[in-house]
């Protein structure tokens, strides 16, 4: 028997279930792995994209803020320039600008560049009005005409170009104060005005920042004798400021405006920060303020600050708006990034849970389907196997019975052959006796005195002949009986072969229904059917041989009957001889032909006995062939039993299967 692998040792039912479940399980594991990998990849991609998006948002916010500041400042500048031009032209039309009258002493307010004290300045004729240090109707008119914009009149007090405020529409403006000088000569309004040029820019007036426009005022000689200032307070541009800080980034982000320079450096212009911008303010604000000292207009910088409290990062980007001297800060919260990423991961997590549940359902369905299918395949095989086992046992039992009967037939045939041999021998003896009788008869005439004893010998010989013929008749009867038994056995073999053929047909049909799984079994069924056909053919041969033997025995019985008749005739003749002994002697020569007739009959009997002997040898040979055929049938039965055993072993590997087999 070939060595079975571990897979072969698994029952057919388990193999079917495994072959269905393993691919389904593998597909489920691969699918779940793909979903898990995709979720991590998608989460990472989403996080990166959102990070890029928010950085882009901060950049765009800063850029937008800068652009808005440029637009706003240009708009204000244009407004101021227009109004300044109108005011200057209006003043020129009304008489221009002149310094008139004697110098009048005025007290001055010093600053970082100037010492206070007194100075004598002539009055300035401006727009038809002579203005000294104090209120000017003309300045009030101009301010009123241009919508209440702060309007201040400066007068030049010396050749170095220092300008002093002598009148203003705003009561907060300290008259007698100098126009501030800066260390930046290119951006110094006083320096610019001294050269007869207009100046536009941010100016600090009475501690507040203004967008201001200075126009030099010249007398008729072209000398700059003063300046007209129009200014709009930057803090009053709330709509613009609110617009800048309105677009915060994400749910936790903030947009802030901070004074970059001046006395309020570091102070928040916008509402105070909230969220992560507030919790990390002590971290990022000093760094931003330090960097702002050297920042150029619209220069953008970035820092990241970790907030242990929020367990998040503050992504800080900021730029410098030079026109307003503000630091524009946008702060994004990394939790806003993580939120989307977590949402994506949660979605994939839900998908994976659903996939696993779906996979488990698929596995359950496949497992149940495979179990049902295996039951549909294995149960018919189980029934067939049990039937084959039962029939194989019956075949083996029948073969053993046949073997036993054949052995008995062999013994009987041997006995018959011995008896026939005795008949033949007796016939030979009888023939010799008849020859002796003939001789005695021929000598009877000469040895009449010995006739009595010769007749006694003759009587004894006839008795022996009678017994021998009786024995032959009994033996032949026994042969006929055994032949009938052989017929019965061959009929049984034929029925078994027929039943086996029927079973093999059904096994082949079931194997065909089982498809590929029954291919091997179909071969076994075909072999069983072939062997059943061989058994049927062998049985037919045995039956034919027994018929021939029966005919030969019937012929032998006829011959023996003839012999018996002859013997009886011989006895009658002997009695007649004994009764008419005297007459026999005298008529002995006349009896010679009768002796010859007896001699001829004995020769025929001898031939008949030889024929019986030949028939018995044929019977013995046939019995031997029958024995061989039955031995072959027995071997086939053993092979069938082995094949069924292998099939059972492959089908039933489990205890419950053994219980089924027992049932």
């Amino acid at each position, binding site marked *: 028997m070939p060595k079975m692998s571990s897979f072969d040792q698994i029952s057919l039912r388990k193999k079917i279930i495994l072959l269905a479940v393993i691919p389904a399980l593998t597909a489920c594991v691969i699918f779940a792995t793909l979903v898990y990998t995709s979720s991590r990849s998608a989460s990472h991609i989403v996080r990166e994209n959102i990070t890029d998006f928010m950085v882009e948002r901060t950049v765009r916010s800063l850029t937008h803020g800068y652009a808005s500041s440029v637009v706003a400042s240009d708009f204000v500048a244009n407004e101021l320039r227009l109004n300044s031009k109108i005011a200057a032209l209006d003043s020129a039309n009304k008489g221009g600008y002149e310094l008139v009258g004697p110098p009048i002493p005025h007290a001055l307010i010093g600053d970082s560049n100037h010492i206070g004290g007194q100075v004598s300045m002539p009055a300035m004729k401006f727009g038809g009005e002579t203005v000294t240090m104090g209120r000017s109707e003309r300045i009030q008119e101009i301010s009123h005409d241009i919508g209440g914009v702060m309007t201040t009149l400066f007068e030049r007090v010396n050749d170095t170009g220092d300008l002093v405020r002598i009148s203003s529409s705003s009561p907060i403006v300290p008259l007698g104060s100098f126009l501030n000088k800066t260390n930046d000569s290119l951006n110094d309004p006083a320096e610019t005005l001294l050269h007869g040029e207009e100046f536009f820019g941010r100016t600090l007036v009475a501690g507040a920042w203004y967008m201001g426009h200075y126009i030099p005022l010249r007398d008729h000689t072209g000398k700059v004798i003063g300046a007209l200032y129009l200014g709009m307070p930057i803090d009053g541009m709330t709509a613009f400021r609110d617009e800048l800080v309105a677009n915060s980034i994400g749910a936790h982000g903030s947009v802030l405006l901070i004074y970059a320079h001046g006395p309020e450096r570091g102070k928040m212009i916008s509402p105070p920060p909230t969220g992560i911008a507030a919790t990390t303010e002590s971290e990022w604000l000093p760094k931003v303020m330090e960097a702002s000292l050297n920042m150029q207009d619209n220069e953008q910088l970035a820092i990241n600050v970790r907030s242990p409290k929020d367990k998040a990062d503050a992504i800080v980007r900021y730029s410098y708006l030079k026109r307003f001297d503000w630091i524009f800060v946008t702060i994004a919260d990394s939790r806003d990034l993580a939120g989307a990423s977590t949402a994506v991961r949660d979605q994939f997590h839900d998908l994976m849970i659903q996939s696993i549940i779906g996979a488990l359902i698929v596995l359950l369905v496949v497992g149940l389907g495979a179990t049902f299918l295996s039951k549909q395949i294995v149960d018919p095989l189980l029934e067939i196997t049990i039937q084959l086992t039962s029939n194989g046992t019956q075949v083996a039992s029948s073969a053993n019975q046949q073997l036993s009967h054949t052995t008995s037939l062999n013994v009987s045939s041997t006995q018959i052959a011995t008896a026939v041999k005795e008949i033949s021998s007796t016939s030979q003896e009888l023939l010799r006796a008849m020859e002796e009788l003939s001789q005695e008869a021929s000598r009877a005439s000469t040895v009449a005195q010995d006739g009595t004893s010769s007749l006694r010998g003759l009587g004894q010989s006839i008795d022996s002949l009678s017994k021998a013929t009786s024995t032959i008749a009994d033996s032949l009867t026994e042969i006929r009986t055994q032949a009938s038994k052989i017929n019965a056995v061959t009929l049984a073999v*034929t*029925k078994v072969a*027929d*039943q086996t053929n*029927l079973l093999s*047909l*059904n096994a*082949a*049909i079931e194997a*065909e*229904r*089982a*498809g*590929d799984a029954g291919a091997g079994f179909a071969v076994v069924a075909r072999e069983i*059917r072939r062997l059943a056909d061989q058994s049927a053919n062998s049985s037919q041969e045995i039956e034919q041989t027994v018929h021939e033997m029966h005919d030969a025995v019937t012929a032998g019985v006829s011959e023996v009957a003839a012999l018996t008749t002859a013997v009886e005739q011989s006895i009658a003749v002997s009695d007649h001889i004994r009764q008419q002994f005297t007459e026999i002697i005298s008529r002995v020569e006349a009896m010679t032909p009768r002796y010859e007739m007896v001699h001829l009959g004995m020769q025929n009997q001898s031939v008949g006995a030889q024929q019986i002997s030949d028939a018995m040898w044929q019977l013995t040979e046939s019995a031997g062939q029958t024995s061989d055929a039955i031995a072959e049938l027995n071997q086939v039965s053993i092979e069938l039993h082995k094949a069924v055993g292998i099939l059972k072993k492959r089908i039933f590997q489990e205890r419950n299967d053994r219980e089924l087999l027992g049932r």
Partner: protein
Amino acid sequence: MMATSATKSASHVGRSLLFGLGDAYYRVELVHVKGVYPWATLEEAPDGSVRRGVIGYLNLRGDKFPVVDLNEVVHGEPTKRLLGSRILLLDCISRGKTVTIGAVAGEVFAMARDENSTFAERLNPCELLSSIVMGLAS
């Protein structure tokens, strides 16, 4: 409505069972055949009824199936009962119901592919016995 045969499966395509009726050979596609059984003694109907064409009921482990004589249907005379005579158990569908019916055949030889059994005439027993099957299905 005609009785229809069971649906063919892929493994049965082109395979038939050979059997004899009288002196002629026939073949029936394996898809119709549920099993082959000896011509055992037939019993009466479970409800004692008598149906046209049914010669008795085959008892298989308690399940009784009606049996008809194919030779009588095809040749008009009953099958001679021999040692090799068989009953083919067939699955036929009529009016949406599967009717299992036995058919007495002569000697059943073997299974063979259609291309190797052209000497035998192809027989569709379900169509041949449609009227009887319809009666049983009703």
